[in-house]
């Protein structure tokens, strides 16, 4: 669990995407940051860089004082040592595992799994396979799976897009409460102003391959 002091994020990276290369700089000490911008601008790629799964990324990433990617030494901290809670847009629940097994994948206890499931209102779905969940249910399970990995940084990519208005409000409030309680820094991608207003202290805009504070 992250401590009370947060060293912020410093990121200067280039990603040679086929359509338009991404060259971005992000320096922030805010605990929660929203990244907005037109679709296809590369927002999800930025989260992949932070998660450590974007092998094409070159440059520097420093999170909370720890060097994850270093341009001179080329050092890369592998994703399994970064402890980020990544919820990709596609959710990617493991299709061969039940909801319970998905939630406990990173190793939470049975009690923690059940508590988190209840908080995200999926407690009644624990024995189902992802195949038999709605889009909104899957989003909440993916969120729970990320939270249960005791992340040092939460990366959410359109995490509420499949929820209806009422549920969206409830779940984003729950997430807000959890990240404050547990002091988990957050990088959020969302199209929805209500989400970003509720969850982020700082807003950045990604357009035409560059990132600027709003």
């Amino acid at each position, binding site marked *: 669990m992250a401590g009370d002091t947060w060293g912020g994020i410093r990121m200067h990276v280039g990603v040679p995407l086929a359509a338009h290369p991404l060259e971005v700089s992000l320096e922030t000490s805010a605990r929660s940051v929203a990244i907005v911008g037109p679709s296809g601008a590369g927002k999800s790629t930025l989260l992949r860089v932070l998660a450590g799964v974007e092998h094409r990324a070159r440059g520097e990433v420093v999170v909370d004082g720890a060097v994850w990617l270093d341009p001179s030494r080329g050092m890369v901290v592998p994703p399994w040592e970064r402890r980020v809670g990544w919820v*990709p*847009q*596609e959710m990617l629940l*493991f299709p*061969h595992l039940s909801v319970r097994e998905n939630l406990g*994948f990173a190793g939470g206890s049975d009690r923690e799994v059940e508590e988190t499931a209840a908080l995200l209102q999926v407690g009644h779905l624990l024995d189902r396979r992802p*195949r038999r969940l709605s889009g909104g249910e899957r989003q909440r399970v993916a969120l729970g*799976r990320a939270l249960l990995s005791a992340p040092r940084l939460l990366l959410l990519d359109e995490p509420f897009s499949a929820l209806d208005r009422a549920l969206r409000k409830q779940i984003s409030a729950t997430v807000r409460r959890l990240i404050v309680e547990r002091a988990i820094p957050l990088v959020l991608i969302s199209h929805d102003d209500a989400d970003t207003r509720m969850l982020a202290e700082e807003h950045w805009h990604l357009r035409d391959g560059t990132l600027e504070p709003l």
Partner: protein
Amino acid sequence: MLAAASLTDVLPRVAEAWTRQGGAPVHFSFDATSRLAPQAVEGAPADLFFSADEAWMTWLEERGGVVKSTERRFLENTLVVVVPAGAPAPSGPAALVGVAKLALAGENVPAGRYAREALEATGVWAKVKDHVIRGGSVRGALEWVARGEVGAGIVYGTDALSEARVSVAFTFPEDTHQPIRYPAAVLTASRHPALARAFLDFAAGPQARGIFESAGFTVGEAAKAPGSAPHATTPNPASAVRISLMVALLATLAGFPVAVAFGWLLARHDFRGKVVLSTVVLAPLVMPPVVTGFLLLSVLGSRSPLGRGLAALGLQVPFTLLGAAVAALAVGFPLYVLTVRNAFEAVDPHYEEVSWTLGVGRRRTFLRVSLPLAVPGIVAGAVLAFARALGEFGATVVLAGNVEGRTRTIALAIYTLLEAPAARRDTWILVGASVAISLAALVGYEALSRRQRRRLEVRGGG
């Protein structure tokens, strides 16, 4: 011209002399008599037939395949025991008992039958029959002796003369077996009967005599000897099915970890030499299985370092069930690896990435995510390899031989039965078993492939 395999070296030289004198060019098809005779009856477009024994000529006469009045008998051969050059030679039939492996031609092939007759007449058959390795043609048996894979072999005297890597231990006395004569006749289906007769006259004449004698044949006209029915030892269908299943199962299980490792490597990793590796792995898919078998025998045979090392560990590869499994695996491996690779490629790599970010490293991610997601596809690959292993013939007959009760699989048993046209019923039993098992395997493959697709259908959405 259809001619017995043991005439491969000499007849073209006779034909050359004949052409030089203005005769028409001759085209040959050399094979075991037991395969040529049925071809002649089925209407092979040929004019002349040189049989390696009376039994098959009689068989052809009975079916009207040859013009009886044109039959000639002027060539004779001897039956000898050969050993690898330089190896200790058994002094007589009794000494064959001490030979660990004795190579013979197939039991319905004339050379194989003469050999058995001679061994029975000299009273050693019962003692050596468990050491006998049956090849297909007599040339196959000769090759095994030449390579030192077997201690001794029984072949024709002319074969022994043509192969420098073997030496003759002794010759079986003529009275221990039927005379080894080559009856020749014009085929009923011939479209050039006069020409065919003329060639026969030339081959029996003084000019050809020198050529035949220099190759080790005895030349002299003889009358038809009292016919002997081919005494075929029929392959046991139940044993063939059992051996086939064992070989295929062994190949499939032993190949499983290797196929998974290669499939994973080819699906998810880029490395130097990847193209070379995948070419080597896939080569048996396009190479004739006989070539694969020959290469395997070279690498794993008793004279290669690897083969010696394995033998020292008690793993005898040539002429064993293990050898049959190795041959089956080598030939089925490309399908195995390709299917496994496809199964892994069908798994979205993003699942693995998510697993990594959840603190699970590469190895455990493979075991907890990639492998379980690919399981139906991997099992489908195993089923396909199993089915291919059941159908293996070419590599098996070269590496493992055709040993009844040990390496004679369904495919080899059918091949043996086809040389003995009497055993139609057993042939059909085995053909039925073969078709049934293969179809069942393919149905299983289809079901598993469908399941693999279903398993991966669900991702994201919403």
